[in-house]
């Protein structure tokens, strides 16, 4: 079974770097090999189509690969794969034309804009989309969309990516989030965990601009990420573990090396040989995997696409960020793990 971090809590120096290249290559390889799962169906624009099973995975593929591309060196295979996958996703949305059709169908929805922003942040633009979206995003109604604070930060980051003026001050919105309130860390659980990881993703533009993180939040996260990640590993919440590790790799200043060394080998145990990482729970045994493969589809795949794509992409995203931070900030870690003074 999987080793919890409680069984091997300290982590040895260099432990993260010893697993990260393989974890990244495999997770990205899984996404590449499962492009079919991201392909949009013919009826994607119909009102009955579930966007959470179609456009959400594709948008996340573009978003997370965009950070992977920015975090990996040119001429590496991972960089090339990430760029290929973004191109694939851009083709799927017909260079933005499909998103424009989506917006014409649901002009007052925010999600077409957010998906578009994933591409725009990478320099892929569609003038017609921006004309309609720009008109809508200048309205009072847009600025007063009712939603959770961490989601509103997502919208603000999307506006920043597209190049329009944010509809409100990001600092005020941040102060209303669970993270921005520096909540008592012993109140952490799944829902607050996802709220805080997304708050960080939005204020740091998906971990690409760590400097935007305020100093008090940096210190708060350095103090409390270790017990949060420990609990996620013990309860086998692999998806949230991956998101928290991305957060750990998005702290300004030196990376929290002890934490990364303790957690990455444990998360690596949850990865199947195919590269898939399940959202939660025990990983399938090799026998189950082999049986599903040899049955020619008669047995259910122990790693079905919709149950794995998010956690696998998140793992690749967090791994690329961690690798970058650990290799560009080698061993200057004296103060990185203390989290003092919050």
């Amino acid at each position, binding site marked *: 079974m999987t080793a919890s971090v*409680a069984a091997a*809590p300290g982590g040895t120096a260099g432990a993260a770097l010893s697993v990260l290249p393989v974890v990244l290559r495999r997770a990205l390889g899984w996404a590449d090999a499962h492009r079919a799962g991201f392909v949009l169906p013919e009826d994607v624009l119909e009102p009955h189509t579930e966007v959470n099973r179609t456009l959400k995975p594709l948008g996340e593929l573009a978003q997370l690969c965009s950070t992977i591309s920015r975090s990996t060196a040119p001429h590496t295979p991972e960089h090339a794969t990430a760029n290929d996958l973004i191109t694939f996703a851009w083709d799927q949305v017909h260079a933005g034309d499909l998103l424009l059709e989506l917006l014409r169908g649901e002009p007052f929805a925010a999600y077409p804009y957010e998906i578009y922003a994933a591409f725009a942040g990478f320099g892929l633009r569609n003038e017609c989309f921006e004309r309609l979206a720009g008109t809508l995003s200048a309205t009072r109604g847009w600025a007063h969309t009712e939603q959770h604070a961490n989601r509103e930060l997502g919208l603000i980051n999307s506006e920043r990516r597209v190049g329009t003026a944010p509809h409100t001050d990001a600092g005020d919105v941040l102060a209303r989030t669970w993270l921005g309130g520096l909540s008592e*860390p*012993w109140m*952490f659980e799944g829902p607050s965990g996802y709220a805080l990881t997304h708050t960080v993703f939005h204020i740091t533009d998906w971990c690409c601009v760590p400097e935007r993180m305020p100093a008090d939040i940096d210190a*708060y996260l350095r*103090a409390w990420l270790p017990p949060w990640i*420990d609990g996620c590993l*013990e309860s086998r919440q692999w998806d949230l573990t991956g998101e928290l590790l991305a957060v750990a790799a998005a702290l300004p200043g030196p990376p929290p090396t002890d934490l990364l060394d303790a957690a990455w080998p444990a998360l690596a145990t949850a990865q199947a040989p195919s590269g898939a990482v399940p959202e939660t729970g025990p990983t399938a045994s090799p026998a189950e995997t082999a049986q599903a493969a040899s049955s020619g589809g008669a047995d259910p795949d122990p790693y079905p696409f919709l149950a794995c794509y998010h956690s696998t992409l998140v793992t690749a995203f967090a791994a690329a960020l961690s690798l970058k931070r650990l290799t560009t900030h080698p061993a200057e870690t004296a103060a990185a793990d203390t989290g003092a003074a919050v």
Partner: protein
Amino acid sequence: MHDLATEVVLALRSGDHLATVCGAAGIDEDNRTGIAAVRVIGADLLLPSVLHGHHPHPGDIAVLHRAVREFPPRPDASDAAVWSHWGMMSALHRTASATAPGADEPNAAWLEGAPWQAFTHQLSVLAPLAVPAASSAVHRAATHRVVDLSRGFVRAVRRRNWLQAAGAGRWLAALEGRPDSLGLDRGLDFVELMGGTDPRVALHVRAARLMAEGRAR
């Protein structure tokens, strides 16, 4: 053991300087099972007098002496068992009883290299050593690793291990330098309300509050 812890909690609450914990729990020097329970609760038998600043009841001192003699650490005893035994002797020594010479401190090296999770677990088990003005190598180790203990408190609450959280919280209440964002006061209230039916949890939380009040004065 639970009766004994309950009586300590009651004595902590009342601050009654005539209270005899062992007497209330029906334990005397001839009751071996009772003495074993005193060995487990350890130095906390005298905690009400320590925290309320009065002399302990002679009956409690006598029973604690008996537990020290009756259950010395065995050759293969765990570090925690050795330290809790030392803690009892140290508590007796602080009562200025001539029959209890200060004993040499055991080794605390095993704590130095412990990961923060195991460190918190061990410190929580040794929470009776978290008393005001009682220095020890364990206390010094805790002083150096306040952030680790704070992380351990967070971990213990997340795992709903109220006893460990209460023990770690008691240490944190006795130490300087925990991150403000921990929110220890509310956290201890929460731990008491969630796990306080275990008298050991109630004991540690009450000890933490009294120590925090004492430090604030």
